[in-house]
């Protein structure tokens, strides 16, 4: 089997796009390997939709270049790019049956009607909808419409698959099963996939790599682990997962917050800022044992029970408040105003670099 990881499926170089006086994308550089599942993650208005439409060919960049499998496609029309796309609202043709919808891209490629029907039926079988070919889109459920859209997007063996927030309209249970199914289909077809979402959990779950985009630029590109544990900026840290971000002054021992807490870290930094994930904080009645630990006394300010785990707001002596998340345990749940001990491994106190544009405080 050839090593697809070495082949560049999509390459964006210095892409810029403005609408009137608004700069939607500024100098986007991104390379996606063949077979990779890459997520473009960003809040609304971040430029991710423009980026997707630009890759799909509905928008052309002001400058920069776009290459698909080595071929310059910067100015190529959407149809020439051989990209399968699943739209946010699925965009199924309401006047065509499910089967005819899936046949559409094949017929546009001059396949015979019989061949198109056979291939379309096979694609529908792959998404478990072989029995629904004669129905119209309005006659099937949202999840089924989504599968049809997926079948239509992959049936002509596209070079790239684009998914534009396809799961946002589905309820949670269905969303999770669709996410798993899409990932499996993508892996079995070894199809290079670019997935757009604003949902960070979805991004962490689905992706080989994530590009966090905000303000029209890629803030960070990396594996889900890198993005979660080593955010390169405050924007990324706050966007991915829940976080405690503490600011203070650097001392030889560690970071001292304004209220006087001293946080020792495994690695030194001079950013003046520390990120602690809520699940990295241990909470207990008695001081915990352990080396390379930061220990604090605190008082429970607030408790939120969300089934699988409990979220506490803990006031630490001195004035800082930390969010702590731990697995729920009915026996050892802490009450509001209870005195507790917090322990945080030094390795879990991670420095966060300052954003480039941010003034030093």
């Amino acid at each position, binding site marked *: 089997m050839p090593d697809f990881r070495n082949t560049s499926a999509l390459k964006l170089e210095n892409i810029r796009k403005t609408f009137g006086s608004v700069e939607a994308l500024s100098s986007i550089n991104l390379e996606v390997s063949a077979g990779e599942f890459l997520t473009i993650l960003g809040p609304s208005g971040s430029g991710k939709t423009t980026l997707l439409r630009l890759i*799909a*060919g*509905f928008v052309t960049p002001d400058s920069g270049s776009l290459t698909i499998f080595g071929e310059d496609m910067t100015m190529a029309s*959407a149809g020439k790019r051989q990209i399968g796309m699943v*739209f*946010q609202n699925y965009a199924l043709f309401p*006047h065509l049956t499910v089967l005819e919808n899936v046949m559409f*891209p094949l017929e546009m490629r001059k396949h015979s009607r019989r061949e198109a029907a056979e291939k379309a039926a096979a694609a529908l079988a792959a998404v478990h909808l072989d029995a629904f070919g004669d129905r*119209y889109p*309005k006659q099937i459920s949202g999840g089924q419409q989504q599968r049809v859209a997926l079948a239509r997007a992959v049936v002509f063996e596209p070079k790239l698959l684009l998914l534009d927030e396809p799961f946002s309209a589905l309820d949670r249970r269905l969303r999770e099963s669709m996410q798993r199914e899409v990932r499996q289909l993508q892996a079995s077809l070894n199809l290079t996939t670019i997935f757009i979402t604003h949902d960070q959990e979805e991004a962490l779950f689905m992706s080989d790599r994530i590009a966090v985009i905000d303000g029209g630029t890629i803030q960070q590109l990396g594996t889900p682990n890198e993005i979660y544990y080593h955010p390169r900026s405050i924007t990324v840290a706050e966007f991915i997962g829940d976080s405690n971000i503490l600011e203070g002054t650097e001392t030889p021992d560690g970071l001292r917050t304004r209220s006087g807490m001293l946080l020792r870290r495994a690695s030194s930094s001079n950013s003046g800022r520390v990120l602690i994930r809520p699940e990295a904080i241990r909470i207990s009645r008695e001081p915990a044992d352990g080396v390379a630990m930061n220990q604090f006394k605190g008082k429970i300010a607030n408790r939120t029970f969300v089934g699988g785990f409990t979220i506490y707001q803990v006031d630490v002596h001195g004035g800082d408040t930390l969010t702590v998340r731990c697995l729920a345990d009915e026996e050892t749940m802490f009450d509001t105003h209870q005195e507790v001990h917090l322990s945080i491994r030094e390795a879990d106190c991670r420095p966060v670099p300052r954003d480039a544009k941010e003034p030093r405080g």
Partner: protein
Amino acid sequence: MNQGFQAIKAQAGSLALVSPALVLLGILFFYPIFLLFLTTLELENIGNYAQVVSSDTSMQVFFNTLRIAVIVTVVDLVLAYPLAVYISRLSPTAKTFAFFLVLIPLWTSQLVRTYAWMVLLGRNGPINNALVWLGIVDAPIRLANSEFAVIAGMTHILLPYMLLPIYNSVSKIDPSLFDAARGLGAGAFSTFTRVLMPLSIQGVLAGVSLVLVLSLGVFIMPALLGGGRVPVIALLIEQQAGSFLNWAMAGTLSAVLMVIVMITFFIIKLATRLFVRGRADAAFS
């Protein structure tokens, strides 16, 4: 059983809602038409009808009327379709302005608009002046008092009747369908024939039937812009009733026109059923 009763009750309710309009139509519309129909039978039973059908003149006028109506409908369709698509993609403000422009002619008296065309197409009108000034013609040509003038005027007046139903259909189409079609490999032509047209065919057929039927009965335009050179059925009816006081013949011609209109409607209805193939119910319900 209970369901059947509910259905009957619902039907009775709907009937109650339309009955005032039905009564009004019955007294002011169907009854006079019935009287008119009776007058056509005064002379030797169906003699009037035999006379109309066997007369070369009146059959030619019917044919001419139909021909002009078809030309006007086709020209309006070709003008209105792209315009409807264009307007549907405008910003809300621009859309309001566009509709204002479309609707002004509808609010203006047909007589005023017809006189405007007479000025426009006149011997010393702006079009002739422009043609002479550009050197395309040596001397002013006859534009008014011609079939061209009648067709131009009718096309203008009836355009909104084509535009509005088509716009109504086109604006309901999800714009992402066009992106989807393009992305899946459809060119402009395929996008039109496979996506835009099937999804707006109902509006198109509604517009076609409105314009066709309205142009079959049009009177003012041929009377004022045709200069007596463009015989249409409405003029013939007016002549029989007004000049010859032959009410029976005028009524007969009207009845034949009505039959033609009804046949036209029926054909379009059939076409709708053929093109939409029951899919609309499945797709849009």
